[in-house]
């Protein structure tokens, strides 16, 4: 699958939610979509899911416009935190509908996930707890086995152990049936290990699209004696500082050269990678 956004803008009346987005998603990868509240994540995902059309620009999947495309739409699933308070259908009925309309739906796998999440099949969806509704969304998304599966914050209602189950199932199923996932999240530090590639949106624009490994190598964390660390990081862009006694840990933006790396080691400093969370905050935070 190859998804291309070409100069895509989305306006709601006068508010511009997305501004001239150009993006290319390709291959069977797990994409992490990050952005602060109101950055345009959900807007971007509703466009990708063909829930609406962009105001400007084009979106194609494998080179074809995907909106109202009967060959492509069955292969895109978009799961999000929905208001289910009027959904009187049972979990079973909701799953059956997906089975009927999703060509690659795997019933056995769905049943396995239902057991794994302890979903009550006969209960109306509106009577499920938030966490159970999230688990149903995750089950729908995974069992539909669509070539493009979008999870927009669906894990918010889940407790930590349930989220762990989700992460594990996602990775396992992705290995068995490689396909494209797009996960939007606020739980950056908890989910970063899932991402092959990261997209960061800020104020309706894409500020970063990069492979996870490369992105986190954009910064370094230097740890050691304060008196050595301070002169070492002088003049560099500091993302974060922590101090414990005389030990100081400073997160910097910008990779080290080989020479700097060697010098840091010879001075007895520990050099580690930066966390995606720190980078995310740095790239989208502050000036509000």
């Amino acid at each position: 699958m190859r998804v291309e956004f070409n100069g895509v803008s989305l306006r709601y009346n006068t508010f511009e939610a997305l501004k001239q987005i150009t993006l290319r998603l390709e291959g069977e990868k797990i994409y992490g979509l990050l952005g602060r509240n109101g950055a345009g994540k959900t807007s971007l995902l509703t466009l990708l899911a063909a829930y609406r059309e962009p105001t400007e620009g084009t979106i194609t999947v494998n080179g074809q416009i995907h909106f109202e495309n009967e060959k492509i739409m069955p292969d895109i699933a978009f799961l999000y935190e929905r208001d289910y308070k009027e959904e009187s259908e049972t979990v079973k009925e909701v799953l059956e509908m997906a089975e009927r309309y999703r060509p690659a739906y795997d019933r056995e796998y769905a049943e396995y996930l239902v057991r794994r999440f302890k979903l009550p099949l006969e209960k109306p969806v509106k009577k499920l707890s938030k966490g159970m509704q999230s688990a149903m969304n995750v089950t729908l998304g995974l069992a539909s086995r669509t070539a493009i599966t979008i999870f927009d914050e669906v894990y918010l209602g889940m407790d930590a152990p349930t989220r762990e189950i989700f992460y594990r199932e996602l990775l396992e199923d992705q290995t068995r049936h490689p396909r494209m996932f797009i996960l939007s999240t606020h739980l950056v530090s908890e989910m970063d290990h899932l991402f092959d590639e990261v997209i960061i949106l800020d104020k309706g624009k894409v500020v970063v699209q990069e492979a996870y490994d490369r992105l986190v190598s954009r910064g370094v964390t230097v740890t050691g004696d304060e008196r050595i660390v301070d002169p070492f990081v002088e003049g560099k862009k500091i993302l974060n500082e922590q101090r414990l006694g005389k030990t100081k840990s400073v997160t910097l933006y910008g990779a080290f050269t080989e020479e700097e790396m060697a010098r840091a080691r010879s001075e007895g400093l520990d050099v580690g990678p930066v966390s995606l969370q720190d980078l995310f905050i740095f790239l989208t935070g502050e000036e509000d």
Partner: protein
Amino acid sequence: MKQRSVSAKIAIDMFAVQMGWALWYLGIVTMIQIVRLIFSAKNGSRIEDFFLSTGQSANIFMFVLGILAVYAFMPAFIRNGVTRKEFFKGGIAAAAGLALALPLIAGVMALAERSLVRLADLPVSYHSAGMIDSGGDSPSSWVRTIIRMIIVPVFDIPLADLQENGLLAIALHALNLAFFYLSGWLIGAGFYRYGGPAGLGFIVLALFFFHLRAFLWKKEAAESLKQWLPVDTFSIPLPGFIFASLALIFIMAWLIRLLTRRVAVKL
């Protein structure tokens, strides 16, 4: 085995769900009809048979189903990867199926009802289709006029007697049902797309279609509105009316498609 097309699946699913609701409706009509039969047998009042009775109330039932068509079904299908076009095609086919199935069921029920009345020799007398009227010439106050504006086209509807011309009776009944379903769908689509205030405009539009069709059916329907009409009232012969009804149904379907062709799905 050949895979069934998505719109055919939608047609079957929507027909099944809505037919399920229709069974409730038919059950209620049956109970009311039994009560009416008992009253009629006791005090000799005239009643409509099952067929003519649904000939009126089923229109409102179909109208409500039409309003729900967008809200209850469209987003759910699109969330499952169905296109708006496939939904539209399936929804139209399901509506056509309902519009045919209900008169057929009502016809069978009416035949059963009349046979029972005959067998049990009950003193029940029936209205014929031509006798159903919307209230005749009452002195016009503006309140009355407004009530008639809304009520007349809903109750003063084209019907024929099953006994006299079965095919025509079924056809007219089915046309009414299709017409009311689509007018409901049109309102639902207008509201879904434009929301509150602009959605109200689609109620006015549907009322316009109601009246237009009522005028075409019989000129009495327009009498009370005569003072506001730019032209004299008229009516057209039956084949012309059937053709005009089909044309109106087609126009409404086309408007619904225009409204929903590229509509944004609400989250």
